[in-house]
């Protein structure tokens, strides 16, 4: 029994969650689909999977039965190495034989060819020779996984993302049923006829699968069918791609960690499998009895896998993929520990039962999440590597341990249990490391998804290590290199930068000289004037800024900066308009901490025009000093959301630049709660209006959507203050994306990063929840006309005016604001009455 396609199910789950959230707002509607074609696709793939898994299970039962009844179990480690060699030979051969074929034809050819080969094996097995059992063991171990992989390539090429969401669960379930049915049949058939006849049945199932696939090829000639759906799919054959895998492993630390987990998992699996077979052989060497045992074991394992698979969705939602990934090794560890205490048959059987069932159900699904950070070709490369040489490598590792134990005369049940416990401990430790690396890797991948074509971000390095390199770069002949090195050095070690900049004051390149001068310009302290009115430069500065002469205005500002003249701030703030606006902003930034307090007062003062306060928030954010950032916290909760966003943006930028920032987490969480309420309220209002928004309320509906988006941005900007800032803002861009796949990624990142309390509170709202039943449009608009948000209130008044609603008089009689646009709209609306 093998269900390798559960990877799709995990993606399905992610994308489904994301779709639920966005459907209401994006108005996504599934296009018209041909139901018959979809059902045909589902049943074709389901039947194929049923046959493939049934055939593979029978083949393994015959293989193990023949082996254990004819040779000692001590052959297994050597046979594992032989399976590795056989797989290495068979993979390129199959790839070559099917390179010009579609996926469905390639699958059919492989299924039929291996089915025919099994008929030959049946004849050979009748010779009752030991070598035939050994050779069959190697052959089944080599072709079985390849055939299953070939089937999943066919699935991948037959279904696009939407179809995969609809069908993949069914296809996986059919495979599990195939495992259950084949186990039952094996038990019954062995009682009635011989075990070797089971191999004939296997061959028939494979030939049937091949014929069914060929039949679908014929159907596909007349329209869409198997292997024709997904044009972006991988090649038709699961070729090795060992070189590509090595490249991925070399380039990405996360990939190496994942590879370690796969290898240790396979190693543990190999040990558990041997332990099970040894225990079985100790019980009996009768072929028929062994086959019945193996049949029952497969029924139990498949049944357990089915139950585990059904519970996976709920467990995944409750505990998350990282916790769920521990379930398999923890179960094996528990059984093996029992084996240490009581070296009997049943701990080994239990360990193998749990390992088989969990590996192909919930652990498989949980582990698939670890592949999410890889995109495109690296993901398929890693998948192939994991299912190919990494797993085989782990099994060979297990073989080497077993050979070592045999040579040392320690291959007894107790020592085998000890080996399993040790391997399991290593496996769980590596899973823990992988879990910690998962969220950052997911975020990097999300970044790449959001900006296709972008070069990969520079890995985070210890910048301090780079100082000697930067100093060397200062001797470069290229002025650009020198300026870059000085910039970097200034960020890392300002004192060293000043020291290194002195000799550069005489550099031949003017850009370098200018940069060096900037580094050596002393920071003078501001003089203290008696009063604001007594500052004599006010008039001159004001005139210069209003003169329309850019050079004059710049010169006046340079003087202000050179004198660190904080009394110039009111003049500068009153000139934040037109051509000189940027100059004034820059001047304020250069004045730095000397004016931070004054700017903070302006920011908090609700009487100051919003435009000026917005500029002040931008200026403080650009200063990015401790004093300036502290002023940004002074924006009141009642301030317009644009201003609050700007302040949070400044704080977030500081966090991204690793500037130390004092954050009161309890305050941030309280504000998060308010933003969340706002988000839910605006969404609800938008969905109530959006269903039948006529032209008179179209703008209002849009404003509500924008308010919801704005509340969501506020929420993420606050999260960026208490979680990794850059990654959190990536998640925000992902959640805001119209692409379900990207939204699913972002949600998965949040699941992996947020604390359980934050997760339970935020994720349901971010996923979207259920649509609210529509309320009376007019009563909602009347409520909105008294909203605290002036723009929304204005638009609601406009809508009521359009309808000539009598309720308008009462609403406008007590206006919510003196805002000019609101007043103009109210006058217009009343005139219509």
């Amino acid at each position: 029994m093998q269900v390798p396609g559960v990877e799709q199910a995990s993606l399905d789950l992610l994308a489904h969650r994301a779709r639920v959230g966005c459907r209401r707002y994006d108005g996504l509607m599934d296009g018209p689909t041909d139901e018959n074609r979809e059902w045909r696709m589902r049943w074709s793939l389901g039947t194929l999977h049923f046959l493939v898994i049934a055939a593979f299970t029978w083949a393994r039962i015959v293989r193990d039965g023949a082996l254990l009844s004819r040779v000692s179990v001590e052959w297994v480690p050597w046979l594992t190495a032989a399976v590795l060699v056989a797989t290495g030979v068979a993979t390129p051969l199959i790839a070559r034989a099917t390179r010009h074929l579609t996926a469905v034809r390639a699958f059919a050819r492989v299924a039929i060819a291996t089915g025919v080969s099994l008929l030959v094996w049946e004849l050979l097995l009748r010779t009752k020779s030991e070598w035939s059992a050994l050779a069959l063991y190697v052959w089944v171990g080599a072709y079985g996984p390849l055939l299953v992989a070939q089937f999943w390539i066919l699935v991948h090429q037959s279904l696009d993302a939407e179809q995969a969401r609809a069908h993949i669960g069914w296809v996986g379930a059919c495979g599990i049923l195939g495992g259950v049915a084949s186990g039952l049949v094996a038990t019954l058939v062995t009682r009635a006829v011989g075990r070797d006849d089971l191999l004939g049945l296997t061959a028939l199932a494979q030939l049937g699968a091949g014929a069914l696939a060929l039949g679908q090829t014929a159907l596909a000639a007349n329209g869409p069918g198997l292997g024709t759906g997904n044009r972006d799919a991988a090649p038709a054959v699961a070729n090795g791609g060992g070189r590509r895998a090595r490249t991925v492993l070399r380039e990405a630390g996360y990939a190496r960690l994942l590879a370690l987990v796969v290898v240790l998992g396979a190693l543990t699996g190999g040990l558990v499998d041997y332990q099970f077979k040894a225990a079985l052989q100790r019980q009996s060497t009768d072929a028929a009895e062994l086959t019945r045992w193996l049949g029952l074991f497969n029924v139990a394992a498949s049944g357990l896998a089915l139950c585990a698979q059904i519970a996976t969705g709920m467990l995944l939602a409750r505990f998350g993929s990282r916790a769920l990934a521990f379930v398999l090794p923890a179960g094996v560890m528990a059984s093996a520990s029992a084996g240490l205490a009581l070296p009997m048959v049943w701990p080994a059987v239990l360990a193998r039962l749990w390992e088989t069932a969990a590996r192909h159900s919930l652990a498989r699904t949980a582990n698939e999440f670890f592949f999410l950070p890889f995109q495109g070709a690296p993901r398929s490369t890693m998948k192939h590597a994991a299912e190919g040489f990494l797993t085989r490598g782990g099994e060979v590792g297990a073989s080497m341990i077993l050979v070592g134990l045999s040579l040392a005369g320690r291959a007894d049940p107790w020592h085998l249990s000890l080996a399993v416990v040790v391997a399991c401990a290593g496996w769980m430790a590596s899973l823990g490391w992988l879990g910690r690396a998962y969220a950052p890797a997911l975020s990097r991948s999300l970044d790449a998804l959001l900006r296709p074509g972008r070069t990969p971000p520079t890995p985070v390095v210890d910048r301090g290590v780079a100082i000697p390199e930067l100093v060397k770069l200062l001797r470069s002949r290229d002025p650009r290199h020198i300026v870059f090195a000085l910039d970097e050095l200034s960020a890392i070690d300002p004192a060293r930068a000043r020291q290194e900049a002195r000799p550069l004051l005489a550099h031949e390149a003017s850009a370098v000289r200018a940069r060096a001068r900037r580094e050596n310009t002393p920071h003078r302290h501001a003089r203290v004037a008696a009063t604001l009115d007594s500052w004599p430069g006010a008039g001159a500065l004001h005139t210069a800024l209003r003169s329309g002469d850019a050079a004059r205005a710049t010169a006046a500002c340079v003087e202000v900066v050179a004198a660190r003249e904080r009394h110039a701030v009111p003049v500068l703030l009153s000139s934040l308009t037109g051509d000189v606006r940027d100059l004034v902003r820059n001047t304020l930034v250069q004045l730095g901490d000397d004016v931070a307090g004054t700017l903070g007062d302006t920011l908090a003062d609700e009487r100051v025009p919003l435009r000026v306060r917005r500029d002040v928030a931008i200026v403080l954010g650009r200063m990015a000093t401790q004093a300036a950032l502290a002023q940004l916290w002074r924006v009141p909760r009642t301030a317009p959301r644009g201003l609050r966003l700007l302040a949070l943006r400044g704080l977030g930028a500081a966090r991204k630049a690793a500037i130390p920032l004092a954050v009161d987490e309890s305050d941030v969480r309280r504000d998060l709660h308010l933003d969340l309420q706002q988000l839910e309220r605006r969404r609800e209002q938008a969905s109530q209006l959006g269903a039948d928004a006529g032209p008179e309320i179209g703008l209002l509906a849009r404003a509500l959507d924008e308010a919801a988006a704005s509340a969501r941005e506020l929420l993420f900007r606050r999260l960026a203050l208490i979680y990794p800032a850059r990654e959190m803002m990536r998640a925000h861009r992902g959640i805001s994306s119209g692409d379900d796949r990207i939204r699913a990624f972002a949600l998965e990142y949040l699941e992996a990063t947020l604390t359980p309390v934050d997760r339970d509170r935020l994720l349901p709202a971010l996923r979207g929840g259920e649509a609210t039943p529509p309320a009376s449009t007019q009563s909602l608009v009347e409520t909105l006309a008294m909203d605290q948000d002036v723009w929304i209130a204005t638009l609601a008044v406009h809508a009521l005016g359009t309808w000539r609603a009598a309720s308008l008089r009462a609403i406008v009689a007590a206006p919510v604001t003196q805002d000019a646009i609101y007043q103009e709209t109210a006058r217009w609306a009343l005139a219509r009455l």
Partner: protein
Amino acid sequence: MGARAPVTMDTPAQLTTVEKAAFLIEVDLFRDVPSELLSELAGRMEEEWHQPGDVLLEPDSEDVRLWVLLSGSVTATHGGKTLPALTRGDAFGLLASLGLPQHETYTAAQACRTLSVAPDEYLDAIADSTAFAIANLRALGRSLQARERIRMPEADPPAGGDTR
């Protein structure tokens, strides 16, 4: 330049700021701008009527504005060549407002109604909000893409050149 000459014919009432904002959302240049920011720009825009033949924008003119056509049509000419006519929802004068050379002449072809804003006011709106600036950049990007799509077929080599 007769850009500001009021029309004496019967004209509908002046638009309110909300109505102007609702119209501006239809203009590609402002399509992605948050409506609240658009209302600030709309509040600074002037609404005018023009008669056929009025020149709204010409090369080397000092009275540069960013125009949006509410109704009617405007023709653009460049070096004696007539360019496709502009109709409701089209904007012009953007490059001139950004301080770039203005080569085309825009003339009212029919009686038309416009909204316009001075460059300083427009640049202030951009400086006020990155969302406004990004929305405008997106619109410019779309416009460039559209032009590229028009140019691409010309760049293709002629098909069937080899008749041997």
